[in-house]
C-alpha cells in the first residue's frame, strides 16, 4: 500500500499541477483576447509619449456631436461663429498700388541660425514673388536610414522635386529673418 500511495499521491500532485498550468494558460489567453478585442490596432502596443487617455480625448473632438445643430459634422472652427469682419474700404483702397514695380532686395539679417536675405518682385503695384537670396544651410543632410521603422510609418531620404506647384507649405515664411528682410525690401518699394 505504501508503495502504491506514493505514486497515487504523486499523480494527484501532477494532476493538480497540470490543471493549474492549463487554467493559467487559458486565463492568460482570455485576458490577451480581451485586450486585443478592446485595445485597438497593434500600434497601441508600442509605447508612445502621449497616454491613451489624451488620444481618446482627441478622438472625441472629431466624433462628438456638434453643440449647435449644423447639417453635418463640421469641424469645431465652423461651429463657433465668428463676428463678421468689419469691412475696411479705406484701408484696402490705400493698399492699391502701394508699391512701385520692380525688384527690391531686402537687407541681410543675421538671425541666430545664420544670414537671411530675400528679394521681392513687384508687378502692377503688388507683391508678385518673393525669392530667397541667402539662407543658412549649416545642417548637413547626411542621411543614415534606420530601417527599423515604426509600425505603419515609412522612412525615406528627402529629395529635391520638380518645382511645378501652385502653393508651397513650410515654416520658413514665418521665420524672423524672412519677415525682417521682406519688410525692408517692401519699405524700398513703397510709393512715398
Amino acid at each position, binding site marked *: 500500500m505504501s508503495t502504491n500511495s506514493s505514486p497515487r499521491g504523486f499523480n494527484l500532485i501532477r494532476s493538480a499541477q497540470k490543471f493549474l498550468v492549463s487554467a493559467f494558460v487559458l486565463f492568460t489567453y482570455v485576458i490577451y483576447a480581451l485586450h486585443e478585442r478592446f485595445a485597438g490596432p497593434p500600434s497601441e502596443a508600442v509605447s508612445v*509619449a502621449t497616454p491613451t487617455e*489624451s488620444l481618446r480625448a482627441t478622438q472625441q473632438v472629431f466624433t462628438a456631436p456638434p453643440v449647435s445643430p449644423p447639417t453635418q459634422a463640421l469641424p469645431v*472652427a465652423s461651429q463657433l461663429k465668428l*463676428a463678421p469682419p468689419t469691412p475696411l474700404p479705406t484701408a484696402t483702397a490705400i493698399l492699391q498700388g502701394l508699391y512701385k514695380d520692380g525688384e527690391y532686395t531686402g537687407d541681410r539679417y543675421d538671425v541666430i541660425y545664420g544670414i537671411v536675405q530675400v528679394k521681392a518682385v513687384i508687378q502692377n503695384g503688388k507683391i508678385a514673388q518673393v525669392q530667397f537670396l541667402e539662407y543658412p544651410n549649416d545642417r548637413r543632410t547626411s542621411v543614415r536610414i534606420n530601417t527599423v521603422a*515604426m509600425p505603419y510609418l515609412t522612412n525615406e531620404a528627402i529629395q529635391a522635386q520638380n518645382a511645378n506647384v501652385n502653393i508651397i507649405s513650410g*515654416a520658413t515664411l514665418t521665420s524672423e529673418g524672412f519677415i525682417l528682410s521682406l519688410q525692408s525690401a517692401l519699405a524700398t518699394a513703397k510709393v512715398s
Partner: protein
Amino acid sequence: MKETRLLMGMPVTLEVIDASATETALNSVFAYFEYIDRKFSTYKDDSEISLLNKRQITPEQASEALQTILALAEQTKQATNGYFDVTHNGLCDPSGLVKGWAIYNAAELLRQQGFENFYVEAGGDIQAAGKNAQGENWRVGIRNPFNPNEIVKVLSISDCGVATSGTYVRGQHIYNPQNAGQLITEIVSLTVIGPDIYEADRFATAAFAMGREGIRFIERLAGFEGYLIDRHGLATFTSGFRRYTYDAIS
C-alpha cells in the same frame, strides 16, 4: 485672380480660379486678416488680446471672437495633452491657434461668396478648395527646410488643409511641456494634412512639440496624415500619406 500681401507679419496669398472672382472679393478677405490682426496681435498695445493680458478687460467682457479663441485654446490643450498651450508666463498668446482659425474663416468667407475653386495661404499654411486653373487638384510643395528654394515633396489636395511646423517659427509657441526648457532640435519640419487648416495647423504645432513621437501621434489621429523631416534630412511619413502625393495620383 491671385494676390499676395504682407499681413499679420507674414505673406498672405489668395488665389481664386472662379471666373466671377473680383478685386472686391479678395479685398474683403484681406480686410478680414487685418481685423484679426488688430484683435489678436500681441505686438499691438491696443489689441483685445493685449487688453486682456493687461487685465484691462476680463475674459467675460471679451468679444465673441476672443471668447471663441479662448474656448478653442482650452479644448486644444486638452486634445493634445498639454502640448499646445497658449498661456506662457501668465500671458495668453493664442497666435499659434489664431493663424489656422483665421485661414479657415477666410476660406469660409470666399465660399459664402459662392467661390468653389480657390486657396488661402498664410505663412505656408494652406486651405485649398476645389481645383486649380488646370482643373486638377491643387499641387502643394513641401519646402526643403535646408534649402528654401527647393521642394522635397509634391502633394495633390482638394478641400483640405495643409500646415507645416518648423524649428524657425517666429514667436516660439512650441515647447515640450514635459521639459519646458528643452529646444526641439531633432526634427526640423512636420507637415500635416487634415480635414481643414484649423485642424491641420493645431495638430501640426502640437505634434512638432512632441519631437519624433509627433509623427506617431498624427498616425493615430483619424483623418490626418503627416510628413516629418529630421535634422539629417530623413523623412518619416504616415501610412495614408502616399494617397496625397502627386506621383500616386497622376
